[in-house]
């Protein structure tokens, strides 16, 4: 069997197997819906509560995407600042690490108290989670310049700006996209966790709040449906990042080159 086909078929087969087993077990042991709904129950809930779920999905998605954008913009700017001088990096890098290692669950209540607008608070929390991989990868990339090319640029009397634009930035792209891929997942995690802590209800309720609420009401099928949507969002973000990376690097970088036929 050719590898490209098996790359799709094998995971698909596992998926079908797991869902069937799930369905079988739930039916055979007659597990009540409020403990473990079958796949069909989840699918049904997805259809029935679509309006509610879609609304929450949009809210979570908005927080995630805004956080990711913010993390990319701020993270890249910070990385540029870091490579301008070792002193700046030495003074500030420990604080970037500090931000990274402190669990967001512990910071989120503070952010929520300090920031009046709940959705801005959520975006900030998710940004804090997502920004580190962007900073560290982009910094590494901007520093990892081919020394030969750097000599070449210097011999041609290239200005600092020319070296940055024509050498450092293109050279950093593969690292940046690696960071972006990690950051997209982190932004979603950050958005969900922050919402758990904030517990924003009413019209601003995202998927996390829906899960929280459904759990309290023992509406387990809805909980599963929300969970399914979060997972789907994560996968979709990942796929989009991979596609972006391929679009930008596909023509030249090793990581994106398809094996020769």
């Amino acid at each position, binding site marked *: 069997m050719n590898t490209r086909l098996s790359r799709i078929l094998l995971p698909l087969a596992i998926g079908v197997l797991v869902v069937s087993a799930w369905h079988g077990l739930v039916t055979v042991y007659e597990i009540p819906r409020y403990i473990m709904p079958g796949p069909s129950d989840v699918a049904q809930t997805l259809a029935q509560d679509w309006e509610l779920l879609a609304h929450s999905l949009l809210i979570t998605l908005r927080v995630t995407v805004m956080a990711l954008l913010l993390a990319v913009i701020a993270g890249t700017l910070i990385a540029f600042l870091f490579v301008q001088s070792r002193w700046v990096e030495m003074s500030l890098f420990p604080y970037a690490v500090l931000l990274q290692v402190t669990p967001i669950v512990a910071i989120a209540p503070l952010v929520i108290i300090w920031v009046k607008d709940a959705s801005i608070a959520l975006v900030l929390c998710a940004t804090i989670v997502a920004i580190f991989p962007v900073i560290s990868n982009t910094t590494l990339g901007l520093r990892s310049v*081919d020394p*030969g*090319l750097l*000599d*070449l*640029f*210097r*011999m*041609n*009397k*290239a200005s600092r700006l*020319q070296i940055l634009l*024509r*050498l450092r930035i*293109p*050279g950093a*792209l593969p690292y940046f996209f690696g960071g972006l891929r990690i950051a997209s997942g982190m932004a979603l995690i950050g958005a969900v966790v922050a919402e758990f802590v904030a517990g924003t209800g009413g019209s601003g309720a995202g998927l996390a709040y829906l899960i929280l609420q459904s759990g309290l009401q023992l509406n387990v099928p809805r909980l599963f449906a929300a969970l399914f949507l979060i997972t789907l969002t994560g996968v979709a973000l990942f796929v989009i990042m991979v596609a972006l990376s391929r679009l930008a690097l596909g*023509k*030249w*970088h*090793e990581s994106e*080159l398809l094996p020769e036929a």
Partner: protein
Amino acid sequence: MNADRTAHDEATQSAPVPVFRARGAGKQFGGDRKSTPMRALEPFDLDVHRGEFVTLIGPSGCGKSTLLRMLAGLTTPSEGTLHWWGGEFATIGAAGRRLVFVFQHPTLMPWTRVLANVRLPLDLAGTARGEANTAATRALDQVGLRGFENHYPRAMSGGMQMRVSIARALVTEPDLLLMDEPFGALDEISRNKLDGELLEWWRAQGQTIVFVTHSIYEAVFLSTRVLVMSARPGRILREVPIDEPYPRDDAFRGSERFSACCRELFALLGEASHGAQANARQGAQT
């Protein structure tokens, strides 16, 4: 200041100013509080004249790359003086002279196509795009890569990448070409072919070339003059002129004259590495 005036006087009095002149130039690394000094290059005198093809050859660690980097202004000597066309390094551009360096590896930007890679020196100098494209296309034509303008470097063989690198060097029509083992990573067939073509370009354009190599055959085939260097401490051991008229071709490679030159260089290099071993032993004992 003083050195400047001397060079200037020489320039006005005795006619041809050497392209490059070193007087008592040497290089020592380290030597501050943290590290013991490491002498890379003993002080040396060297004149490179217009239109010459000078080759540096020697065992590894003999300082030939350091010497070449000094010529390129990439390394400053720790003593002595260097002059380019009778002036300081900084005045080269103002005097309308061009100096280019060809690296051991192709050193291409993988993210841009061949044309943009070749155009780079012109782009950095702010040449208009159309003019730069014309020059780059011409340079590619010169190295036999017409039609490869839109390829990415990755899709090319090592020899072709090296040709791109040379096209990038030729695009500015340099007066002095410094080449650091440019064909060292290539197979012998590609290397011989490129050596032959390099001679043709050199003869057509009349630049001055200083070339570093590990290969005695390459040195003899190409050069008007070979500088044999020896290691520990790195120094210029001997100067061997190759009195063979150009054009040189495969017939020269098979000639008795060629073998004689090679034998002479083999003997000198043997001496160079023996000396180095003896010095190393001596160093180990003390």
